[in-house]
């Protein structure tokens, strides 16, 4: 009697088929077994984890207050990870009082120090994770370690450190970012850098000013955009310096920030910037004029309605619509401009603000021959065909008034 192998060999090509089928079935079974085992293990793991978390939650107060000695959980890796996760989650949604308590606990138990150590010592994705955890603690002593992360060779790590510093939202973090940008230049994409700087400079935008003076062109553009976002009345006068800067981003930043300055002074500068050759500078200036909502700004907003750029026209229209009590005279001036695009932008802004009915009511309440014409303009969105008085001198008048 021959062995099973002999039988196999005698089968010839059919043996190969048989072997292949057996192999395929075995692979199927092994795969299913792997998936089944993995699922079973995970089920057990998560059930166990949930049970331990529940146990920690039950003695949470004692844990946070230090009643339970830190060594009781700190020396066990899995326990420590759970506590860290839970405390960071709780910290993110805590009120200021609770935040202070949790931060005190994290410092006293050594969790902050551990995060700092890991952020400094780990490499690769472990360092990303450590940097994120450190940033979540928002502990100022972690800023230095986060700043070191900015100098990592890996771009992902640099981004994690940058975002972390942004989350710190304090001038110290901003200084670290700015010093790094001074040294390294723009080695991360501009958007995350801007975001981080906006968050960290919001409290004290002045930290940006020295760097704006000596940074290179690319960095200045980015910092200019940040400045535009964080400008406050406290740096109003500083912004005036940038109104005639060679970089359009800086001029735009000045335009954006100038709405915080004294209105009468701002209107003069903004009206000049509203004539800039670069469209986004004009846009910022028009937005600034709109935000001022000052009567002297209205003529320049009217001029903005005739701008060649659609966005500038729309923003000018939105600014004009904010003069709610003056809508009728403004509308008359818009019609008098005889600019179809400007008229369209104004009526669109009016509709978006839900003020169209109010304007119609005011026109109807008015007197004079122009009443019917204006009503027709509102309804048809088309300029009147007859010679409606064109106010070419509106801007001249406005300039003299301002």
């Amino acid at each position, binding site marked *: 009697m021959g062995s099973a192998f002999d039988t196999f060999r005698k089968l010839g090509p059919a043996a190969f088929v048989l072997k292949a089928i057996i*192999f395929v079935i075995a692979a199927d079974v092994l795969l299913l077994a792997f*998936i089944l085992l993995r699922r079973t293990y995970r089920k057990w793991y998560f059930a166990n984890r949930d049970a331990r978390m529940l146990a920690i939650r039950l003695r949470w107060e004692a844990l946070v207050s230090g009643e339970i000695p830190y060594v009781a959980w700190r020396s066990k890796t899995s326990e420590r990870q759970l506590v860290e996760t839970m405390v960071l989650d709780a910290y*993110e949604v805590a009120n200021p009082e609770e935040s202070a308590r949790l931060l005190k606990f994290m410092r006293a138990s050594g969790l902050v120090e551990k995060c700092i150590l890991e952020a400094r010592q780990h490499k690769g*994705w472990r360092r990303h994770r450590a940097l994120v955890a450190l940033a979540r603690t928002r502990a100022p002593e972690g800023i230095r370690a986060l700043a070191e992360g900015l100098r990592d060779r890996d771009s992902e790590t640099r981004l994690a450190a940058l975002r972390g510093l942004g*989350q710190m939202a304090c001038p110290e973090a901003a200084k670290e970012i700015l010093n790094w940008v001074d040294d390294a230049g723009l080695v991360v994409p*501009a958007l995350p850098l801007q*975001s981080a700087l906006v968050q960290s400079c919001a409290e004290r935008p002045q930290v940006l000013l020295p760097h704006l003076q000596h940074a290179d062109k690319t960095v200045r553009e980015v910092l200019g955009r940040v400045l535009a*976002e964080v400008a406050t009345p406290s740096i109003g006068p500083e912004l005036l310096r940038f109104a005639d800067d060679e970089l359009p981003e800086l001029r735009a930043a000045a335009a954006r920030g100038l709405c915080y300055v004294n209105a009468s002074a701002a209107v003069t500068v903004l009206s000049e910037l509203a004539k800039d050759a670069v469209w986004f500078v004009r846009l910022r200036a028009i937005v600034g004029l709109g935000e001022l909502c000052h009567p002297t700004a209205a003529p320049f907003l009217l001029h903005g309605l005739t701008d060649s750029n659609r966005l500038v026209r729309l923003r000018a229209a939105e600014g004009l619509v904010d003069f709610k009590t003056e809508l009728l005279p403004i509308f008359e001036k818009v019609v008098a401009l005889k600019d179809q695009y400007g008229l369209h932008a104004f009526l*669109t802004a009016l509709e*978006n603000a839900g003020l169209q009915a109010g304007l119609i009511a005011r026109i109807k309440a008015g007197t004079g021959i122009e009443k019917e014409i204006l009503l027709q303009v509102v309804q048809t969105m088309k300029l009147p065909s007859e010679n409606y008085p064109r106010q070419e001198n509106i801007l001249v008048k406005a300039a003299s008034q301002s």
Partner: protein
Amino acid sequence: MNHFLDWANHAVFYYYLVSNLAYLTMLVIAFRTSAAHLRHLESVRFDWIKSSPMVPPVTLLVPAHNEAQFICTAVRNLLELDYPELEVIVINDGSTDKTLQMMQKEFSLRLVRAVYVPQIMSAPVRGLYRSDSDTRLLVVDKEPAGSKADAVNAGLNAATSPYVCVVDGDSVLERDALLRIMIPVLADPNRVIAAGGIVRVLNGAEIEAGRIRRVRLARKSIEVIQVVEYLRAFLIGREAWARGNMLMIVSGAFGVFRTDLVRAVGGYRPSAIGEDFDLVARLHRHSLEKGADYCIEFVPDPVCWTEVPSDLRSLARQRARWQKGLLDVLWPNKDMLFRPRYGRIGWLALPYLWLFELLAPVIEVAGFATVLLAAGFGALSWPFFLQFVLFGYGFATVISIGSVLQEELTYKRYNDWQDVARLVSYCFLEHFPYRQLHMIWRLQGIWQYLRGDMVWRPLKRQGQEPVGADKADSSPVTAS
């Protein structure tokens, strides 16, 4: 003759060998990329991204044609997406049912005369409606033009955000899908010009108020096989191609694009059969011709659920259409092949699509023919033939199982182990007779294209909420 047949059989064998080795390489790359992506996600805090002051606005473009039954639920869900700067533009593409009226009632739409600049050609717009209940919603009511591309173009003209995300009105997006798909864009907005998310099969899932309540595997074999195909296409194909910055398709059901670039290439081509593939090919061409440093990303975790055909007839139509779409894009772009100017797209991605996607059914049929001829002439080596069949079967099964395994190890959407067991089983079963049928449908597609038959034949849908009756047909399975 015998010598020729022998040579032909060997050629087909080597063709399959190269094809499968290419897929095996993709599988390895995909495993590594997925692992890296999961590690990357550990260091991304979504609430940080959401609270970031510089998050660019995104306009969701939702073409809708005769979707009165579910459009309100779909729009409500889109408005609830977890993204800080959102605008939703629904394009009512000449619906003959009450799609517009339903939305008017539900969202208090009012006719506005907003500035609409038809920068990209589309059928005439009848009117624009802004919602009073949620000002982020704009509805563009336009004349029908018979193509999704035309509807999207109309929406592009009305979009005001630097990024647009095209979403099928009858698909279900997960709540954080938009935020997740924007992660690579936010990390490097200058380089990333488009990003695609994963499209998964909705059939079988339990849905409540337009949201997935529980993910279950579909019951019909034909649907389960498509699940395997989608997993293979997205978790292996797209993941690997994107890794090499050679992604040629961002699914029409869910993808984010830079608005200025889409406008620069003239928007979607209304006559395109596979408009999503066509757009990405033109974006590659545009960027490479400009010498731009760019990339098109695939993000495997933002999920869009979509219904797939559940009967053979509809599936046949869909697959024939995809093949037509493939040819419709590859043929006009043939000048990109092997030109140094087009880099790895011209040297790798496009040749692969020509050889292993477009011509695959032709070569398969030729392979069958030579085998039959060889058998007829008595020149067929049966051991070789059996080995060849088993090799092909075994290799293809490994790839399919690899995609299921990757799903299991990474994103794990099918929680019921019975579902996974069924998925694995279909990795073995899909090769006969589905694969042969698929080959015939694809051949039909090529034939239809060559004889100029470009008629769009509607697919039969089950009509699961919120899936409408007339689904836009996005192609996910190229590079599968």
